[in-house]
């Protein structure tokens, strides 16, 4: 295991604290009717930040599912800013600008795995140096896309890292209902690629596993399947009531990645209450700016017609024209 420098570990803990705070703020926005359905990060902070710090934001790509974006601050401020915009339902929330190498949330589960494999394949075709890391959940591994993509990645020796976030649940469905496989790393045998299971509540352990996988990937040694084991500490989403199905004792027994990392930072003697308070205060202010920016981000309703194609078809242009007239005419517009 690499011995990470103290400042790196501090930076990782900083992003983990931020991730949870950002996530809670977005959750609360939904409760206040200011954001749509969203999925809290609680339990995934270590595995997201650990992975992010093992990658090179200048050369590597991250394809998230939907729960991970708040932990990718290291890849650029745009990730969080656009995630907030996405969460309040603004179309530009799906647009994470160049040069940030992070894709927007993927709602159609596991469809991002073939995308990641294709991206890795294309990067190699272009002689680019980096690799691709794609997140998907334990439940999402039941989709054919996961299997088809990992299998093809093996055949291609594609520079891709597939990280299965095993948080115990897919909404109300436990892992025992998803598969009888011993664990998710075992699924790598079906693809003939390396598979490892790592403690997903231990950011440093995740960092090391991803670092290994990354060196293999960029060396042309092909893909790696990493199972990061954690526990979903919150509801599935703002729309979910986990008390209907989550056994309380399981939840109590679950390790909290934030506490695990705080212990490590304390062990290294680089923690102080005041330091953590400052980190949280900074994150809070940073999030406040993101929310203000998002809520004041302009939106012209006619943007609904943009980007269907590079140039609208005549039919689409006409629909846009008729719509624009109606919207301008309509007084009730504001209420829409």
């Amino acid at each position, binding site marked *: 295991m690499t011995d990470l420098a103290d400042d790196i570990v501090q930076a990782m803990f900083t992003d983990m604290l931020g991730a949870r705070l950002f996530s809670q703020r977005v959750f609360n926005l939904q409760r206040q009717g200011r954001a749509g359905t969203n999925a809290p990060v609680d339990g995934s902070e270590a595995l997201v930040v650990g992975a992010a710090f093992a990658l090179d934001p200048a050369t590597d790509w991250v394809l998230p599912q939907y729960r991970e974006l708040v932990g990718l601050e290291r890849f650029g401020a745009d990730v969080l800013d656009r995630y907030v915009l996405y969460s309040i339902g*603004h179309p530009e929330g799906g647009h994470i600008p160049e040069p940030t190498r992070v894709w927007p949330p993927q709602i159609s589960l596991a469809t991002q795995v073939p995308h990641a494999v294709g991206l890795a394949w294309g990067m190699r075709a272009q002689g680019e140096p980096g690799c691709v890391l794609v997140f998907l959940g334990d439940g999402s591994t039941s989709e054919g896309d996961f299997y088809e993509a990992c299998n093809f990645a093996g055949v291609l020796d594609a520079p891709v890292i597939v990280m299965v976030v095993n948080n115990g649940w897919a909404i109300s469905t436990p892992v025992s*209902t998803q598969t009888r496989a011993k664990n998710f790393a075992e699924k790598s045998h079906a693809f003939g690629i390396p598979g490892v299971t790592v403690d997903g509540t231990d950011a440093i352990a995740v960092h090391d596993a991803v670092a290994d996988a990354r060196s293999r990937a960029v060396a042309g040694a092909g893909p790696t399947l990493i199972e990061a084991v954690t526990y979903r500490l919150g509801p599935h989403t703002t729309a979910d009531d986990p008390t209907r199905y989550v056994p309380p004792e399981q939840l109590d027994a679950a390790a909290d990645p934030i506490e695990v990392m705080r212990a490590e930072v304390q062990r290294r003697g680089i923690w102080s209450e005041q330091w953590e308070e400052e980190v949280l205060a900074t994150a809070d202010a940073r999030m406040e700016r993101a929310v203000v920016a998002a809520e004041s981000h302009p939106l012209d309703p006619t943007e609904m*017609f943009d980007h*269907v194609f590079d140039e609208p078809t005549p*039919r689409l242009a006409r*629909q846009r024209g008729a719509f624009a007239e109606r919207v301008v005419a309509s007084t009730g517009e504001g209420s829409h």
Partner: protein
Amino acid sequence: MAVVNMLEAINHTLHAEMARDERVMVFGEDVALNGGVFRATEGLLDAYGAQRVVDTPLAEGVIAGTAVGLAAAGMVPVPEIQFLGFSYQAFHQIAGQIARLRYRTRGRFEVPITIRSPFGGGVRTPELHSESLEAQYANIPGLKIVLPASAADAKGLLATAIRDPNPVLFLEPLRGYRMIKDEMPDGEHLVPFGRARTVAEGADVVVIAWSFQVELARRAAAQLADEGVSVRVLDLRTLVPLDVASIVEAVEACGRVVVVQEAPLTNGFASEIIATINDEAFYSLEAPIQRVSGYDTPYPVGMLEDHFVPDVERIVAGIRRAVEVEA
């Protein structure tokens, strides 16, 4: 007769059908332990047990695909696709297998499968949770397509669907789950397929709609009544089979037609309604048929969706266009 919402009607009917016929099985993502993400399957697990009410792995293709085998084994599968947008993952099984098994085997295998799935917009769901895909299924022979617009019909059409020996795509309007409330008949209540429902009587123009758009059309009709425009509203209830006779009768009576759909305009099911009227009632048309529709864009995100989905205002405008023109 109790007043219930569509969700209650659907839950009630699932209970009744599982009690009536022990071959009925309900399965899908989060339908058992959690009673469904909208509680449509609430209580089924406790009442009928883990053999008949089953949480599946997260894979729509195999949810649809196992339904084929269950049917061949003599069960009556009622799988749920959590949101219609994710039926795309099962398209090869629904369109390629479920819709054809009876035909391919010349009736050796029956396919009494009812696929339930919520769809439609206006409730701020994430991407791919709101798509109206009925037209993409309507061109697939062998599938019946059923879209209730009232709680009473949700009961009567769902019971008919589950008892139908053919595959049925039963589409439930997300927006109507709790908003649409009406009197649900007690006891046995079966609504036959292929019989449209006249929701409002009228003589100047007929608005043809299905699913939640029927509710919007009703409101538009009420609004225009005050202005003396007599608007008939026809709820198709099922697209396959299609009640051509009722459509023709309404067109002959009114001469002017508006078709409402939430799906994108191009090749939505409204196009088939217009083509059918061209075939069957061409000479009764006094003006071009008006389409009030979603646009040819992907279903947009939350801040834009109210601009995408037809609303009362747009339906009223469509009706005005239809009646304005001189015959």
